[in-house]
């Protein structure tokens, strides 16, 4: 990878971190309503995963979606504007934190019913298979989502139809307050893919380069007509499930232990130690990101509310 490739990954991870921190602040000020699920701690997962995709490849995820949106090329401006429910948001203020998408960038959302988007992902992949177009669908979901029936129906169908889909479980050790081993019959979630004869692997989700390599390999196998693949990415969320989570289900030391392996801090060290970039260059980049996110917040705050008539638009495409 060229130097710029490394810096792009670092840029994306830091931008997601700063965006999420700003979102938390805006939430505390009462400017964001509803639920807000932060991606802090998991930045290397979507950043590494999406880096090797081509523009033909589709991405779909759950409600923890702001970071994924950024990795798919949405701007911090339209992401934060959506959080504030503004007309300039990526979903015109009608979706909110959990429902962000930009289909022109092949980013298909942003789905808030746990596991329900897995059958949709099978359908997106079916679309490419049927139309003989080259895309692979990358479908991300949490560990908790592997316990709902949709997961099993979708994996089974993907194998039966040999669909070009990469199933990606972001195992952040908890579904809300329930630890994986309290909810899942197998703690190594990727073993579930064995039941559907889907080749699978796992990777350290705190190491962006490892995730990138694992993703690239599987995407290539799928592109070659190999059918679905399953990647379990082990990670950890540093913040609560959503804003206002009292976090009674885990101890502070556990969180601190994972924070020592901060994916951003580790990658920063790597870049300097391997002479990819100097400390000075990195600080300059970080300042630019700071400014990018500050500008996005300003843009969002100054953006207009949706027009009142937007309430009734987009219910149907056709006029009956």
């Amino acid at each position: 990878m060229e130097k710029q490739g490394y810096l792009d990954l670092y840029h994306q991870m830091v931008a997601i971190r700063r965006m999420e921190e700003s979102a938390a602040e805006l939430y505390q000020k009462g400017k964001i309503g509803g639920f807000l699920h932060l991606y802090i701690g998991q930045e290397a997962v979507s950043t590494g995963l999406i880096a090797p995709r081509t523009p033909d490849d589709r991405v779909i995820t759950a409600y923890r979606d702001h970071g994924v949106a950024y990795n798919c090329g949405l701007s911090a401006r339209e992401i934060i504007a959506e959080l504030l429910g503004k007309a300039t948001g990526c979903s015109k203020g009608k979706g909110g934190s959990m429902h962000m998408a930009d289909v022109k960038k092949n980013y298909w959302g942003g789905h808030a019913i746990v596991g329900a988007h897995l059958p949709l992902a099978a359908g997106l992949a079916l679309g490419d298979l049927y139309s003989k177009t080259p895309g692979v669908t990358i479908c991300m979901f949490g560990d908790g989502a592997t316990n709902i029936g949709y997961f099993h129906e979708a994996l089974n169908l993907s194998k039966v139809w040999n669909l070009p889909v990469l199933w990606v479980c972001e195992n952040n050790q908890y579904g809300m307050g329930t630890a994986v081993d309290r909810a899942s019959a197998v703690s190594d979630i990727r073993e579930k893919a064995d039941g559907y004869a889907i080749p699978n692997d796992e990777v350290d989700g705190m190491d962006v380069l490892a995730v990138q390599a694992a993703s690239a390999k599987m995407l290539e196998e799928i592109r070659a007509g190999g059918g679905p693949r399953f990647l379990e990415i082990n990670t950890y969320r540093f913040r609560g499930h959503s804003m206002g989570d009292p976090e009674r289900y885990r101890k502070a030391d556990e969180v601190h232990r994972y924070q020592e392996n901060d994916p951003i801090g580790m990658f920063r060290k790597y870049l300097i130690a391997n002479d990819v970039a100097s400390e000075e260059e990195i600080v300059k980049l970080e300042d630019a990101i700071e400014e990018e996110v500050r500008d996005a917040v300003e843009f969002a705050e100054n953006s207009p509310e949706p027009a009142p008539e937007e309430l009734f638009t987009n219910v149907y495409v056709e006029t009956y």
Partner: protein
Amino acid sequence: MARLTMREAISQALWEEMERDPKVFILGEEVGVWGGTYAVTKGFYDHFGAERVRDTPISEAAIIGAGIGAALTGLRPVAELMTINFAFSAMDHIVNESAKLHYMFGGQMVLPLVIRTVGGGGRQLGATHSQTPDAIFAHFPGLVVVAPGTPADAKGLLKAAIRSNDPVMFIEHATLYQTRGEVPEGDFIVPIGKSTVQRPGKDVTIVTYSKMLELSLKAADQLAKEGVEAEIVDLRTLRPLDMAPVIESFKKTNRAVIVEEGWKSYGVGSEITARIYEEAFDYVDAPVKRVAQKEVPLPYNRTLEQSAIPNVEDIIQAVKEVL
């Protein structure tokens, strides 16, 4: 015009649309090799092949979910749910996904999906296999719900549904498949969202749809012998609901009976009745009557089951009560 059964009319619409547009394909349980549980897709697999007539596992959520996903890529899937009773296993995808995506993402997602399914009782299939829960689906903005009562409407509405860019729930009735009627040949479209007068009259308005249209027409014939001319309005589309022909008829007759096969509580009749009172209260000469299913899960026993489903006598009785 040919005289076709409802089954033939639906089959013809599907066949012609698949011939016309390679983006149209079918997925569902037993649609292919078996030829369709109700034989609607007989011969399709051999003609169109396994890619376009896709047999699925018994995975209702995945059938609808994959239909949605494929539709998002620009295809026009017709996803078949073997019967409407199994739609509950796919409720999340019908309600929380198909009916929401266009709105929730600010108009950027478009899903031209048809969900073909069949409901209705009267075949001694017991409580789990005999339901008419059409009103439930009509509750959700974002979803189009169509339920034809004649072979011609079935053909024309199915073609319209396949060409629509909205998700359409297309509800057939199991005991109408053998019903015959004149069906225009070729490219015949019936617009979605338009109720229609199926029989003109001046004394009372009967509002109905699907299987109950057949019964209402029989009831009207008998009433005519007694000098009562009933006007029958067939809703055809439950959402978006076209009240104009209902209100126009009611302003003429000042009396109405609403006939549906589903349960009365929170049903189609409840909605139509309320709208008549809201939109034409000054024209009411008698309380609007509803004829609907008894409030029980349908029993297996033939006599018991028949006594729970509306019949021609029930309709005649209700009409006499409002006259």
